[in-house]
């Protein structure tokens, strides 16, 4: 049941999906892996939308060079833990939700604890090694994974529903080499908002998700494209002879 304050706060989206939909958001728990370029818009929009509990994890401190794109952090936050900085901003936008910040690396040891009782995992990581950990855990626990990746003016997003769609490893069988990558803040904003939109649609049960579709954004040409993806029978995670 929504309080009168909640009814007012969310009135414009209750017009879209009713109080029933809003209550679904309120009852949900989402884990955001990363409080950087993608994690920033994802965290802010999911908090503003009223997702009841959000856990956000990052192992970094805010640096000056982050601030062109990591809009959840501000100049006074330099040196602060990203998870804590994000938690404070999300709480300022919406004090009516529960936000937990986790400062630390996401690894195969702690992933089960971090995603315990969550309804969705949002991939806002900057490397594929951790993405593969998220993907494996999502598959094993049957929790949806909302993927996003960015580079320069370009980005991609897809929604992975374990057992129903190709998994991340089917689409990206190899981890690209780690590097300091160029990126524009608007690219992170564009893809992060898409991911947040997917989460909201999934939780409410409305619209068409990016299932078995990889959305590609070319910001330099202002072109958007979606391509089909399929399960790979040889996938080491979800294939016929999975791990």
């Amino acid at each position: 049941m929504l309080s009168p304050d909640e009814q007012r706060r969310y009135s414009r989206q209750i017009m879209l999906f009713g109080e029933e939909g809003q209550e679904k958001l309120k009852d949900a728990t989402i884990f955001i892996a990363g409080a950087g370029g993608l994690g920033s818009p994802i965290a802010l929009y999911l908090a503003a939308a009223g997702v009841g509990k959000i856990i956000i994890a990052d192992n970094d401190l805010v640096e000056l060079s982050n601030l062109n794109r990591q809009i959840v952090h501000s100049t006074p936050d330099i040196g602060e833990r990203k998870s804590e900085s994000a938690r404070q901003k999300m709480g300022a936008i919406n004090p009516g939700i529960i936000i937990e910040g986790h400062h630390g690396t996401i690894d195969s040891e702690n992933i089960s604890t971090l995603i315990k009782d969550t309804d969705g995992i949002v991939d806002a990581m900057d490397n594929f090694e951790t993405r593969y950990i998220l993907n494996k855990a999502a598959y094993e626990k049957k929790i949806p994974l909302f993927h996003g990746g960015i580079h320069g003016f370009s980005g991609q997003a897809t929604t992975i529903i374990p057992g129903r769609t190709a998994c991340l490893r089917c689409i990206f069988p190899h981890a690209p080499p780690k590097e300091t990558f160029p990126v524009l803040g608007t690219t992170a904003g564009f893809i992060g908002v898409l991911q947040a939109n997917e989460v909201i649609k999934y939780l409410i049960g409305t619209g068409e998700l990016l299932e078995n579709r990889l959305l590609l954004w070319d910001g330099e040409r202002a072109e958007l494209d979606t391509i089909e993806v399929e399960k790979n029978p040889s996938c080491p995670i979800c294939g016929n002879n999975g791990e």
Partner: protein
Amino acid sequence: MQVILPDKSRHTLPQDPQDIRGILLKFGCNPTSVIVIRNGIVVPEDFTAREDDEIRIISVSHGG
């Protein structure tokens, strides 16, 4: 077959079947940094492309 590289340039290859790994090698693409789409669907490296196929190579955006 038609091959479209990440910079959107188009190249026509001879009609013979060719595996994706060989196409990537020919155009100097690192297999770990790209995904390959054949006629709109992502295909693995060991896939063999045929004469009428359109092969699109896309750079993976790996940052966050």
